[in-house]
């Protein structure tokens, strides 16, 4: 390895990751059971955020349907848990709806291994199907985004409408054990926390591998200019379909973990609003950086649980305002601040840049406007022009 040639900055980053990982795994030692459970839920959200960042941040395709992929994974795990809790009998909501026999497709989710495999495969295959037809036909941009919204509406309508099979609006809840271990016991919860933390770490490393490879470079190239990629000889549709599928599979994994911590899944947890919220985590944390997306999800959810208990009505306004601020001033999210601090954070540098006409293209829109006019002249001449 070339670690001998690393710059101090790279050592700092490595150190930062090491500390973050240590804190992540040591959290059960100094956090109450209640908070640990919350944190575990946030870690599951961080996993979706990573998957969403692959498709949006790196490939430039906005999916407003990741709630569905997340939800399908969650339902797969919920069905397994429900069957285990029912102990061979018909799940309660089915008998309420007048079903006499367990539907055939539910039987698939009886073995734990099969449920986990399906929790990954169903979202991935759904994304593969949608991606295949849309990307191959060069449906992109806002049209693709609208299609993902349509998918959300179709799936939630289906889940609500088929109450006998899906639990309807109430969703699937009332679990007892996982592989024989009680879900209510703090020990199980702690182990599940570690499992989630390990999954987050694993997904993070996997995403790093993807984005660092030449495959990841092709994805970024597609984001910058899909047509150019085509004329180099790559088939963008293939790359887009693959990354969309991977991203959906990751969301499915997150959904499975989410159910284990929360103990319920219902259509309202995977609808349009949660799907959009997921995008906000990535936008605010910083799309195009993995750590930004993951931290964005954790911190936004932490802030949500803190603020929404104190000011239940204020939270949505706060989140909306935060989103506007990020879009206007921090197009790369909070993580972008660390990658390339905008000049307005550093007054000395700001003056310097304006004086020198600004060689870069970074910074807020106001400054960019200034620079455009400036074009190598001093700030006084800009003022004179303005007058």
């Amino acid at each position: 390895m070339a670690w001998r040639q690393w710059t101090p900055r790279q050592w700092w980053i490595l150190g930062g990751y090491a500390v973050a990982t240590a804190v992540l795994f040591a959290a059960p030692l100094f956090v109450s059971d209640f908070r640990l459970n919350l944190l575990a839920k946030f870690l599951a959200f961080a996993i979706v955020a990573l998957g969403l960042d692959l498709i949006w941040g790196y490939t430039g395709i906005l999916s407003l349907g990741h709630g569905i992929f997340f939800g399908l994974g969650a339902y797969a795990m919920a069905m397994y848990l429900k069957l285990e809790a029912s102990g061979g009998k018909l799940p309660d909501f089915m008998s309420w709806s007048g079903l006499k026999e367990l539907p055939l497709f539910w039987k698939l989710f009886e073995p734990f291994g099969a449920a986990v495999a399906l929790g990954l495969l169903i979202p991935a295959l759904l994304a593969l199907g949608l991606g295949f037809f849309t990307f191959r036909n060069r449906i992109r941009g806002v049209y693709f985004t609208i299609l993902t919204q349509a998918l959300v509406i179709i799936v939630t309508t289906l889940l609500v409408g088929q109450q006998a099979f899906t639990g309807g609006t109430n969703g699937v809840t009332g679990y007892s054990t996982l592989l024989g271990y009680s879900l209510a016991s703090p020990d199980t919860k702690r182990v599940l926390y570690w499992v989630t933390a390990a999954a987050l770490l694993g997904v993070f490393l996997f995403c790093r591998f993807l984005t660092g490879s030449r495959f990841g470079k092709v994805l970024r190239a597609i984001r910058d200019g899909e047509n150019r990629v085509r004329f180099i000889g790559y088939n963008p549709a293939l790359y887009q379909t693959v990354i969309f599928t991977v991203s959906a599979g990751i969301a499915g994994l997150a959904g499975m973990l989410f159910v284990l911590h929360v103990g319920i899944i219902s259509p309202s947890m995977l609808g349009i609003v949660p799907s959009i919220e997921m995008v906000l985590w990535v936008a605010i944390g910083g799309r195009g950086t993995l750590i930004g997306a993951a931290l964005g999800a954790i911190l936004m959810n932490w802030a949500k649980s803190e603020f929404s208990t104190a000011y239940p009505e204020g939270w949505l306004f706060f989140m909306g305002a935060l989103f506007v601020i990020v879009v206007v001033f921090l197009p790369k999210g909070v993580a972008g601040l660390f990658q390339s601090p905008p000049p307005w954070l550093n007054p000395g540098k700001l003056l310097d840049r304006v004086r020198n006409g600004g060689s870069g293209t970074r910074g807020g829109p106001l400054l960019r406007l200034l620079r455009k006019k400036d074009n190598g002249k001093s700030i006084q001449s800009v003022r004179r022009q303005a007058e």
Partner: protein
Amino acid sequence: MSQNEILQCRDVTVEFDGFKAVQGMNLDLHKGELRFLIGPNGAGKTTMLDVICGKVKPSSGRVTFGEKVDITKKPEHQIAEMGIGRKFQAPSIFSSMTVLENLEIAMRQKRSVAATLFARLSSEAKDRLHHQLDMIGLGDKSGHRAGGLSHGEKQWLEIGMMLLQEPEVLLLDEPVAGMTDKETDKTGELLHEIALKRSVVVVEHDMEFVRNFASKVTVMHEGKLLKEGSMEDVQGDERVAEVYLGKRRDDYASRSTA
């Protein structure tokens, strides 16, 4: 098709909503030939390049490449992989990536997902990339974000990307448009070097630039072939002077008095 021919366009017609941008156009290209495609605005030059690289599907006609393969039915990325490279008029590079990364993904290689996932940059490939960087004069800018380059540098980067792609046929659309005189000269040198190894078709408006090359010129007018021959032949042709060169001279005259 004779042994030496690499590209053959036969009776190519392109229609856009009833408007015929190209009508029964023929174009043959030999191996290692440098061909200029000129003509007044709207003559169908760019559309012709679009047909060859697969961006536009002709309503009739055939384009055969290499071993008698009709490429008009193939998708763009397959045509590119077969060995036809295209440079568009506006520089299109991947602006958020570094100069080196731009070259890395353009380099000739397997283009499948599995191949790119596990691709490593061999030292041999690195040497090639750096050699190319020097050739296009961006040797000291390999780590720069491509979006921050000047217009001329972007054009060269794109030419460099195309060369690493190692196409057998290169299609260049106005490579010197918007360049300063100095940049134009440098691009001319690059083009001379490129034309040694591959077949090149260049669409160009700048007659001074075309005169620097002793090569065959194809003149298009209203979607049809008007004249084909050396620059002298073409300049001596009355019809060409009428539709194109004459107008250009007037243009120049009016511009110099303005």
